[in-house]
């Protein structure tokens, strides 16, 4: 059984939406970081799907989507590192990982 491109894209969009929902609604900062990672991985899924679909296109270099996936993975790792260090700095001063309690800046 082969999965169609359209199926993969819809699945990827669904996972992406789960990530966005998590970022917007959860209050635990660790869970928000996890949701951000889910979003990037959902994008990777659609890249892989495109990579499979492009294999039949003889005019293009088929390695394009794979290269893109590797780049996204690298960026996701760097982003997690920066995010966790900011989170650590926040936790040291605020003693909380609840986004709702961090509310000094308003207006």
């Amino acid at each position, binding site marked *: 059984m082969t999965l169609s491109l359209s199926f993969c894209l819809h699945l990827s969009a669904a996972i992406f939406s789960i*990530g966005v929902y998590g970022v917007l609604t959860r209050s635990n900062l660790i869970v928000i970081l996890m949701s951000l990672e889910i979003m*990037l991985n*959902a994008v990777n899924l659609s890249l892989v799907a*495109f990579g499979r679909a492009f*294999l039949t296109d003889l005019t293009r*270099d088929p390695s394009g989507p794979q290269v893109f996936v590797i780049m996204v993975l690298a960026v996701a790792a760097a982003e997690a590192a920066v995010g966790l260090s900011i989170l650590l700095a926040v936790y040291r001063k605020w003693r909380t990982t609840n986004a709702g309690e961090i*509310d000094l800046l308003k*207006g």
Partner: protein
Amino acid sequence: MQNLPAILLESSPVSLNPVTSTDLLAILPVLILLGTGAVVLVMDLFQSVPAGEGETRKPVLHFLSILGAVIAGAQICGALAAPDTGATSFFRDALRIDKFSLAMSLLIVLGAAFSLLGAADTLRRRGLEHGEFHALILFSAASMILFTQSASLIMAFLSLETLSMSVYVLTAYTREEKRSNEGALKYFILGSLSTGFLLLGLVFIYGATRSTNLVEIEAALRGGGANLDSPLLLCGLALTLIGLSFKIGAFPFHSWLPDAYEGALSIVTGFMAVTVKVASFAVLLRLALLFGSTPSAGTIGAELHASLTAALSTLAVLTMVFGNVVALVQRSLKRMLAYSAIAHTGYLLVGVITAMEAKRSGLAAGTGAGQAVLFYLFPYALMTLGAFTCMSYLGRGTEDCESLESYRGLGRQQPVLALGILLLMISFAGIPPTAGFWGKLLIFRQAIDTGHWGLALTGIVTSVVSVYYYLSVVVNMYMQPGGENEPLSTEPRTCGKLAILLTVGAVAIVGLLPDTFFRLSMAYSLR
């Protein structure tokens, strides 16, 4: 296996072009910035810690990093002055360097240099002189230059991410302060969310056009979109637009901006207000012209043009109204300037829409699109840098001079500086004959010329509203008694003084000689 293309089965399918010296020469300014950043970072390890209070402890760091930025700026100026040979591609079409991207790069390097100059005093005052600060400013400036020059979707994504990450960390630089932590956290979460949208958008565009290269995408559009998946392309474009709207702080996607601007050091706020906006608008303008103005054989061109115009117009109107109205009620100058930055994003979006129209209706020979955006961004960058440098220049101890009340009586205590702030504020408000006025005039004029009366009218009315809050600073400086304010301490603040003098002077010059700068922005506009 039988449906694998022949290219995979052959022994050496892709010719691997090595990086040539031409490629490296083309990105020399970027290499200089990166090299200086690395040197400064390592050098910081060998600097001995403090002599005494009140003297620059690490003058070498400031000097070296500013020198690096100035040399990179001189390189870019040299390339700008060279005769125009059109756009040239480097690194197997990953980068595309033309006069427009060079002009935008110059603005970015200018922003970095002035921020480093203004930061010398404020970092010393707070005991925060570390090499990381200079390195991060230089690294983010380097990635912004690559972002404005990127001609491939992958390159654009990578450089946007490296620049964003540097700026997240810069926002969190004063890590002992709760406000700074909070601002950085909000900036990081919403910035990464926008990155997700942008990335999904770019991937959808890639999937629809089957290419990451902007030139090939344009060719695919010109071809009438025979094999274009139009819902996928529209979806991708919408997601990309949302992602970029976060970065420029357009209205429904602005919520991180006031908090990040307030939490960061004033000098960092000035840096990111200028450079992130310049770099994002350079790419937004390029993408808008590519997707909104490419004539195509089929209906796809008209369809894209209509949707992009509608989306950008809505964003522009909402952003102009929201930014100006909310700025009216702010009690902190820093937060007020943050909302005014949102308002200016709205005016610049009008510039992008008119550029799209101009390009679509056919450009006269020798002219380009987007000169209004360029002409607006140059004085805007100088004004913003000047205003935020003043804020940190006037700071006492670990505090920057942020509340409007703290400017009371400044006209008497510091008459020359107050005059400078007065010029910056009336230029922000767009009162003739200042630099800000000419920029707005050109944008609204072009909006009327291309038939966007509604946009021009909204822009003019909201500009009039903005005069109120900009002048409230002036009222506080000159017409309020300044009893409770203690005078500035006597620490040397030469670098800050120099930065303010240069920015204010440049704003005054642009205001007096608009013709010269208009001709320059025409010459450097996007072909």
